């Protein structure tokens, strides 16, 4: 009887320890994580959820940063500390090239690299699933360090709508 009681008392503690172990082991860290919002970049245009017509200008203000910026349209950015090569799928022929990915490859996938805090966008694929829907897009700006790796995990996201001729 006492054995049963002891097991009963141990069970919750054991469950707690296991739960913590399960999450600690595989994918957690305590270094280089951003708990406070990064304010080095502030997107000026377009405003959040603004409607724009192509071509349009994307502008942002950067403080305390003089590296390069990468803008991803409608796709997730590369992971922290990765180079842009990580955006290239394993089976893409581009991988055989030493300069991969080049500018053309990136532009083809709506990824833009710039040192200026602005970007003029000429084209963007139509994302509408039906005629009644609006053509919604999302852009994400990340920072590249001197070695071409993503600097930290700061990402600056903005949603906007593109007004189409037939919409």
């Amino acid at each position, binding site marked *: 009887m006492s054995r049963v009681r002891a097991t*009963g008392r141990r*069970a*919750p503690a054991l*469950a*707690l320890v296991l*739960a*913590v172990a*399960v*999450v*600690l082991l*595989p*994918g*957690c*860290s*305590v270094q280089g*994580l*951003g*708990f*406070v*919002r*990064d*304010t080095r970049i502030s997107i000026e245009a377009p405003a*959040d*959820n603004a409607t724009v017509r192509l071509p349009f200008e994307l502008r942002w203000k950067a403080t305390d940063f003089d590296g390069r910026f990468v803008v991803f349209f409608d*796709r*997730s*950015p*590369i*992971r*922290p500390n*990765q180079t842009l090569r*990580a955006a290239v799928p394993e089976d893409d022929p581009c991988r055989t090239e030493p300069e991969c990915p080049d500018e053309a490859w990136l532009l083809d996938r709506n990824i833009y690299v710039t040192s200026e805090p602005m970007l003029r966008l000429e084209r963007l694929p139509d994302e509408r*699933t*039906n005629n*009644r*829907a*609006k053509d*919604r897009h*999302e852009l*994400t700006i*990340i920072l590249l360090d001197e070695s071409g790796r*993503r600097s930290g*995990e*700061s*990402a600056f*996201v903005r*949603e906007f*709508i593109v007004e189409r001729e037939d919409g």
Partner: protein
Amino acid sequence: MAGRRRALVAPTAHMDEVNGNGHTPAGAVLSDEEAAIAAVDAASERLRQAGREALGVGGADESLGSLRQTLAASGVGIYPAFALGLLVAVDQLQLNAMTIMGPEITAALGIPRPAYALVLVLKTLVVTVAALPIAAVVQRRARRAAVSITTAFAWAVLTAMTGFVVSVWGLLFIAVAAGAATASVRSVHQPLLLDSYPPPARVRIMSFYRGFDNVGEIVGPVMIGVCVVLGLTWRGAFVGLGVVAALAALVASRLRDPGFGTWDTEKVRDVVRSDAGGTEKLDDDEVRLGFFEIARRLLMIPTIRRILAAWAVVGMMLAPFLTYLAFFLQERWGMGTGARAVFSAVTPLFGIVGLRLFGRRGEELFREDPARLVRLSALLMAVGVGAIGLAVFMPVFLLMALLFGAGLGAVSVMIPAMALPMYSIVPAHMRAHLGALTGIFFTGVGGTAGLLLLGGIDRRFGTAGAICSLALPGIAAGFVLRTASRTVNADLDRMLDNIVEEEEIRALTAKGVRLPMLACRNIDFSYGQLQILFGVNFTVDDGEMVALLGTNGAGKSTLLRVISGLGLPSRGSVRFRGADISYVDAERRVGFGISQVPGGKAVFGPMTVVNNLRVLGYAHGRNSKAVDEGIEASFDAFPRLAERRNQLAATLSGGEQQMLGLATAFIMRPRLLLIDELSLGLAPKVVGELLDMVRRINAQGTAVVLVEQSVNVALSVVDHAYFMEKGEVRFDGKAADLLARPDLLRSVFLEGASKGFAKAGDSPS
């Protein structure tokens, strides 16, 4: 005729104590017996009524006090409901954070959106599935409070740990672990809440608890907004939410489990105990059901089946609704993330108001008639989804928002309105399983179907079309739910009858009354919609041999299936040595000593004779020595089988196959052997040999039930006989007395005669 109709006890028991049971010869002092049965009926009805009042049904003429008064009278505070409510609100915070901060998380970690969506889907799946093992953890011991507290601390830690994730795998592990922890909300919270409060407070308490769910929906986006204002990233927000969750868990850490059915089923038991004149608590010696047996038992309750079906349809509607609502607000009204968060935070207010208004009225309705509460929940569902469907057509934002709010509010109120009748018709220790099953039906069945269905509608008719189309299954669910109002009272009475019977058995045992080996009471059985057995009572005592006679299709074989566990009754009980085994698996019943020899197909044809016996022995855990001894005993009894020991069973004659079937009794050594259609298609000489063997098995102490169409065969070996016709027992008495009932036997003889004419050469039985 009604010899052992009410039999719960052995024939040797004192008649006055056991409500007129025993072997009364057919036709003897019928008026006395009927009077005794009427007295039993009256006592049962009185106990049932007392049980209903203990469950909070009835007593509508008494005024319903305020919640404060009711709680004060019962000596229970608001703390358990508050603590559990706090936990459910915190659960909502975490859920909201994962959804709202999804874009930030994916951008920071560089995780593709589909991968993140998959993580969320997996989490939902884990929440749904993990509720089942959590129910299994609490099914034998009432430790629901400990489970709630432990899992609350676990998910507080996991929420905080989300802020330290650096990869999609870490996120997946955390989401799955957090899902497993939060699953306790589904299976444990409401059953614990019900057992913590007396019936007159339950609707209001459950409404109060549900209100926290809505509060969580409001506070979640607000807290995330506060985190943004404070300049925290999603990591900081999760750490902050983890701290809040830990504080909530700390507040809830004083929860204690009051035990199963403290305020309802135990009260009913008390009523029966006091009626029996004894107040001493008896030992709990019932045969406990396992996890799957409980799940199956629940699904056999008509009201539960209907409610779960309705719940699946609600899931089909509600599970994808929130996703579509976000897209609808974005597309139709151009609302950004912030505006949508405000909208999501305001609409639950309607639910809070609705729950506040509903509580007392719901309590009154349940007292008057649980069916009325079920009908109200059906109405609320139909109105709720109707309002949501209508909202998408509104040209003015305010009208749209009001209709959405009203619709969601009605659905919020519908949940406790449906939950109380649902939980009340189920024994307390099975309620956690029911909670888990509702999750399976809501998310697993309904949610999946909804996503599959709505994807196509969305592509063709847009988001508004998808939301509007949700109204149709919602209204259908309302109709399904309404049908549950027809069965809820009968199911409530069945549960009460089971408790009453259980307590009667305990009282009889305590008085030293000897119980029969097998007692089937008021058995109903159906194949789908076709009812086969109607209120069958059937008793077998230790070492007894009884015949079960009747025409073809009378329900004899079906009754055997109910006894052996191959079929489960829709009403009534099967007791073996006093223990309720009505819903115990057939495999476990073999372990208790119940074995069945099915008519004409008791062997594995492709196996040899000796392997037939050997496999049976090993399948039931006998060791080699015991199996070998059993086989030798079988061959001693049936020398013809010994001669054919290496022959395939399929090549044996019909009589030899029956011998092999009977020989299993030497391996299994059952306490009760059920033999179905022993003589079917066999020559009289072979039948004679088999009957000799049946007598020998019986002489060794095994009770035997012999199902036969042949009256001559059956009555040549038994003292006691039952005669069934059209699913009812028409005769229960001495075999000799049955011979004096030409009105019953004529049908058998005529059937036998017609068979004889049809098959020239066969003699009628």
